[in-house]
């Protein structure tokens, strides 16, 4: 041992080798301890037991076409039921000769969603696309123009109804939720009290009761002759509900912003609105993307509760299709089919949230 200072910098060395190849991967990930090896074997056994029967039911023994329900009962799934009923499941009670319109609405929605994935379009252009898209949706669904007969909202059903309730609910519920969250942190006691009261009240009651009250009790209070469209009432209930939940998610983000950010903005002379819009909200919302999307996903599925006020969304239309006496006993097939539809939209939202996180958390990546 000597006390000589090092005159030449140490040369950089390559890191020690990591296990490679399939065997190396297996050893590192699945068999790296006795307990994990046992778990791996048990999981493989479970998959071996469960998957073959599932494949047999869903594919090998499945019946793909049949004239009616009686001819469709075998050992496997009856996909013929979906074939016979998919129009009803997707479009519900919408007049059959006009069903190209809800079909077009679904396409418009998918196009709007696709546009939202294009980074280049974000901002005014995307807002314009969505404005045009939503106008087209309502024009197509409601009609009332030459060549487009009017279809009353009570007949809107199936997937378009689900999409309308969910998308409008999110689109209007979100800004309202942001306002409520800001209001709850306001310096003004009256504003704060109103926001807290609203959030706690709405969060504390089941959505079903709100939908019920909106559609059964509200008419009792309105003067006779005045009616509010049933779909509109459900939609409003939805927006108000979504806002209360989203407000608390947004508040979580607001609380995570260090006080120094607000002080720096104040010291530069920014007004409350500028500070909120340019400094606080962009950071707060970027932080809460995962719980926001979580709420959106659960809202999307909650749209099925409108069946309680006899609106037939995707799930409602499916339940209705199952009551056909010619096609009895195919609820598993029907549920698998619509579960796949729900799943694809929810999975999309989940992927989209990852895109948003990448985009808005750039500053936090190294």
């Amino acid at each position, binding site marked *: 041992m000597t006390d000589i200072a090092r005159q030449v910098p140490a040369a950089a060395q390559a890191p020690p080798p990591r296990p490679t190849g399939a065997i190396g991967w297996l050893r590192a990930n699945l068999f790296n301890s006795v307990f994990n090896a046992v778990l791996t074997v048990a999981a493989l056994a479970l998959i071996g037991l469960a998957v073959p029967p599932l494949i047999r039911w869903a594919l090998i023994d499945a019946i793909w076409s049949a004239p009616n329900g009686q001819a469709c009962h075998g050992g496997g799934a009856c996909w013929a039921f979906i074939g016979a009923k998919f129009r009803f499941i997707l479009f519900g009670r919408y007049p059959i000769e006009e069903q190209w319109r809800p079909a077009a609405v679904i396409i418009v929605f998918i196009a709007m969603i696709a546009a939202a994935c294009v980074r280049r379009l974000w901002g005014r252009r995307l807002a314009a696309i969505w404005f045009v898209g939503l106008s087209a949706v309502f024009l197509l669904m409601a009609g009332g123009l030459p060549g487009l007969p009017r279809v009353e909202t009570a007949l809107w059903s199936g997937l378009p109804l689900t999409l309308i309730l969910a998308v409008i609910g999110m689109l209007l519920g979100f800004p309202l939720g942001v306002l409520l969250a800001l209001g709850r942190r306001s310096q003004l006691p009256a504003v704060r009290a109103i926001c807290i009261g609203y959030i706690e009240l709405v969060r504390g009651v089941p959505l079903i009761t709100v939908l019920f009250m909106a559609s059964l009790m509200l008419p009792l209070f309105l003067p006779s002759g005045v009616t509010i469209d049933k779909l509109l009432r459900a939609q409003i209930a939805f927006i108000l509900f979504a806002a209360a939940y989203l407000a608390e998610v947004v508040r979580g983000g607001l609380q995570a912003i*260090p006080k*120094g*950010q607000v*002080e*720096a*903005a*104040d*010291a*530069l*002379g*920014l*007004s409350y609105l*500028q500070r909120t819009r*340019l*400094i606080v909200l*962009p*950071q707060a919302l*970027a932080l809460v993307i995962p719980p926001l999307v979580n709420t959106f996903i659960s809202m999307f599925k909650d749209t099925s509760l409108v069946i309680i006020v006899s609106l037939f969304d995707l799930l409602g239309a499916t339940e209705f299709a199952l009551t056909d006496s010619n096609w009895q006993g195919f609820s598993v097939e029907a549920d698998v089919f619509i579960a796949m539809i729900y799943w694809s939209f929810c999975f999309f939202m989940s992927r989209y949230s990852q895109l948003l996180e990448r985009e*808005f958390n*750039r*500053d*936090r990546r*190294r």
Partner: protein
Amino acid sequence: MSDVGSAAGATAAPVIELQGVHKWYGEFHVLRDINLQVRKGEKVVVCGPSGSGKSTMIRCINRLEEHQRGRIVVAGIELTSDLKNIEAIRREVGMVFQQFNLFPHLTVLQNLTLAPIWVRKLPKKEAEETARYYLERVRIPDQADKYPGQLSGGQQQRVAIARSLCMKPEIMLFDEPTSALDPEMIKEVLDVMTGLAEEGMTMVCVTHEMGFARTVADMMVFMDRGEIIERAPPRDFFSNPQSDRTRTFLSQILAH
């Protein structure tokens, strides 16, 4: 006690004036009868033990803290609860914080142009030219498109100084600007501040950097327990402190 101004600024009218300012946090009396005048071009360094109210005092000057009694006049505008006055004063007073407080979601250039564009209503192009000029001045012209998180502490603090300068303030407040920095980065920030002082900026600095204070300050202010104990030009302040508390404080920070 008379206010001793610098030789250069003695005739100019005060741009910051605190008269009998008091402040409480709940029951705790943080500021007690603060009287302070800062003239145009004057550099005031405020020091004192932690908890003495130095930060609170300079944060009152741009209303990050509210005083409860007394009068504060900045750049000819009296600080009242009138939002218009507060915003007008904040436009003229730049502030640099201990924790930098850069906006992490914006690039360096966006940090610098934000307030000029939204508060001064400058066209974007002009704001960017100004921003690049000041980035040059704080010697980091090549970091404009990085995010604050990608910079070192010293670089971040220099960006924060540039961000304030982009508003072309009359007065700069520094609240312990080097206290959160690694030792090897303190000098680069102090150099920028010294340069600024040499150009005649009116500055109020809360700092423990006594070397900086000696070279730059026109007046030293020593605070303890919410009061201004002593004020004097740096030569007298360091060589011949009048109060025991000042002497104790100086011996503690200069001893090591």
